[in-house]
């Protein structure tokens, strides 16, 4: 009975992972095929070729795109962490009139789809002259209701007595925030950091809108360009580029997850 259950469970897991992983594995395999092979519909390349990878870096300035993506994602991550943590601190530890109303208003903005605010945002960025700059790509994403919510929930688990003890001993708010609240919330900060880095890395529509030259464009647009620049798309090259682009994502998830587990364990033992 028990063996059967385990068997079924694992069978299900294997099927699910095959379904989920197949596209990625297939993309990985295509990246080693030449054009003819792709069109023949082979799943396993007959001979592995690195030509596609070389071509990917030659056809579009992939390095530049990667660099841009990295810069933009990093700035957004940093901006979100700073602004969300400061806002969450105010929502938890400072007492002021209308605090909760303001917080719910802030949460309510999560109901507005990002696309709906795209045009006003675009006009603002345009008026500020931020088109084709890192500023235009990053600043609109600094304020994140989700980030504020996530950190507020974590900050709320910090005993209020710690804040009161700090107040009594004359420790300033910022020092308390920096030396006590942030170190105690490392887990949530890493979660939010990974999340915001990845969402920014995968962003497509906004960079497409506010950039029109290679100097600041991000990788996702680069990928799209590869498909349209040629009359017939060379799928091998595109897939090679895709693999290059998702590598940092996977790496970050991997590292981040390890950190997350560590953080969660610490909390449990304490």
């Amino acid at each position, binding site marked *: 009975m028990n063996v059967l259950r385990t068997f079924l469970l694992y069978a299900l897991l294997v099927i699910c992972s095959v379904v989920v992983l197949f596209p990625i594995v297939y993309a990985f395999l295509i990246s080693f095929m030449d054009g003819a092979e792709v069109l023949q519909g082979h799943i396993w390349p007959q001979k592995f070729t690195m030509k596609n990878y070389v071509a990917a870096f030659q056809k579009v300035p992939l390095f530049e795109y990667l660099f841009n993506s990295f810069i933009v994602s990093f700035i957004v991550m940093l901006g979100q962490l700073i602004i969300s943590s400061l806002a969450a601190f105010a929502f938890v530890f400072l007492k002021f009139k209308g605090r909760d109303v303001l917080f719910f208003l802030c949460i309510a903005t999560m109901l507005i789809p990002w696309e709906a605010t795209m045009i006003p945002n675009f006009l603002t960025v345009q008026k500020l002259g931020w088109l084709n700059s890192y500023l235009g790509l990053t600043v609109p994403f600094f304020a994140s209701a989700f980030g504020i919510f996530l950190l507020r929930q974590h900050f709320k688990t910090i005993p209020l007595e710690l804040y009161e003890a700090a107040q*009594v001993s004359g420790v300033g708010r910022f020092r308390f925030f920096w030396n006590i609240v942030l170190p105690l919330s490392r887990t949530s900060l890493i979660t939010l950091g990974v999340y915001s880095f990845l969402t920014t890395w995968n962003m497509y529509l906004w960079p497409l809108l506010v950039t029109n030259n290679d100097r600041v464009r991000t990788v996702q647009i680069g990928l799209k360009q590869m498909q349209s620049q040629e009359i017939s798309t060379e799928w091998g090259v595109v897939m090679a580029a895709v693999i290059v682009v998702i590598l940092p994502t996977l790496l970050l998830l991997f590292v981040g997850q390890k950190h997350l587990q560590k953080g969660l364990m610490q909390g449990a033992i304490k």
Partner: protein
Amino acid sequence: MEQIELVHVYKSYNGKDNVIHDLSVSIEPGEFFVLVGPSGCGKSTILRMIAGLETITSGTLLIGGIEVNELPPSERNLSMVFQNYALYPHLTVEQNITFGLYKKKISKQEQKKRCLEAAEMLGLTDFLKHKPRQLSGGQRQRVALARAIVTHAPICLMDEPLSNLDAKLRAKMRSEIRQLQRRLGITMIYVTHDQVEAMTMADRMMILHEGRAQQIGAPLDIYNHPSNTFVASFIGSPPMNLAKAKVLESLLLFDNGRAMRLHHHLPPSTQQIIVGVRPEHIRLAKPSDDHFIAKVVNVEVLGTETLVTFELTKNEHWIARWSGQWNIHAGEKVPLTIDETAFLFFHENGQRLDHSIPSYAAGKGEHQ
């Protein structure tokens, strides 16, 4: 050392119901002052108002003669120990102790010196590099104390600091805190719900009930002269025996026809009153004594003393406390006597009936 004074202080959270009613008290410099009362009586609220963590709805709080109602906690020059210690879990003991010192413009060397001094005083020297979670409850408690004393603040507030410790450790910390306070000469305001802590530690104490001060005074004064039935039953363990009685000339009539004769220590009122007697004042009668016979309901032998629960009337059980070990069993009938100077009389509404009997003072000395 500074005096703390509360003048007609009220506190209300919702603007309608007062949690603290018209509280006026003056706490002397260097005094160990205990706020004691059952849960929810407002004692922590008072402490937090003094600390500046709660606003004062009306009234004045003076520290060292200066009104501090609007002053933030950090400028009141006091330290505080919290019930759950409020240690920063990710900092070492040393960092915990010195964390609050930077604001006071104290050099690193002086910080280190004070930290070592406090650690030594509290036996924490070996643990300075440990994190709070590696410490036992008593050690954490000491870290919290050390953090309070390194500031060299003249006033220290403590909010039930011992309630998370086991009984043995609590007794030990009780005397340690008391000694520390004496040595440093700081003014201590100490909140507790435990009347034993209050009795053993306080220079003076205030008993609170439902946001009102019931009585302020030295522990023994309060023990011997409780101002109402609440104080009488709250202070002392087991509590004071109380029973309703009618006064008929020199007789006290209890329900179910039990009567006791008094010779010269008469209540000043002749109506229905409440009679109170401390358990240690109920003795086994000698043949010559005026006595009454009561049925024993329960006996608890504690080694040094024996608690005998007996039937005063059908529904009312009183407890007598005799020192030593007594071989008495439930169901036995025993002759008991009460020194009549030990009787306290309260009005039906609970207030102590005023009386002054010269023999009372003598009686008090006898029982101490």
